[in-house]
């Protein structure tokens, strides 16, 4: 299950790493699929949500 690269420190600005954890439609990939620890999954989720607010990542692929 070493499909995902994890950084030392999670950062909402590092979109390349966060993009691994969203689907094509922009959803956050669930922990049962990513297989990373619960602690890391929480950090990923938090970072993605901040990045979305700052328009670094999309909420969905339906944005016009």
């Amino acid at each position: 299950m070493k499909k995902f690269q994890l950084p030392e420190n999670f950062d909402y600005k590092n979109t390349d790493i966060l993009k691994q954890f969203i689907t094509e439609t922009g959803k956050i990939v669930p922990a049962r699929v990513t297989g990373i620890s619960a602690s890391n999954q929480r950090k990923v989720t938090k970072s993605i949500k901040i990045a979305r607010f700052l328009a670094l990542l999309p909420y969905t692929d339906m944005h016009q």
Partner: protein
Amino acid sequence: MNNYETILIINPNLSSKVNEFKKKFEKLLADNSFEVKKVEDIGRRQLAYSINNHHKGHYLLYRMQGDPKNISEIEVKIKYDEAIIRHLILAVKELSGEDSVLLTEALENKNKKPESDDAAEEKEVKKEKPIDESPKEEVTEEKSDDKEEDA
């Protein structure tokens, strides 16, 4: 004293006046006794979705230290500043002195752009070359003729 990271997305139409804006904002921070440790001018960036019908935004990142009591005053000022299309103030444990990924990406893209300009110039040169080549071909033919004569 807490550490804060502030991200501002500025109206891309005011991108040229960003230096004035930065001075104004830094003065506001200084008035509220915030100490700015690092400013990153990330520049214009494509937004993942449109905000107030803007598709691009000028990103600024401030790493600063200050009193949590004064945050609300800054928030109020930011809220009524029409130049700012989105903002976020985050409390962080530590302020890193390194450049953020966004800034390094932006700098890389800037370095790439001149290259693409060079490539465009090369293309122009290439366009010119065929015109030059036709006389050259004649020259080579003449040369080959000469060689044949030598042989």
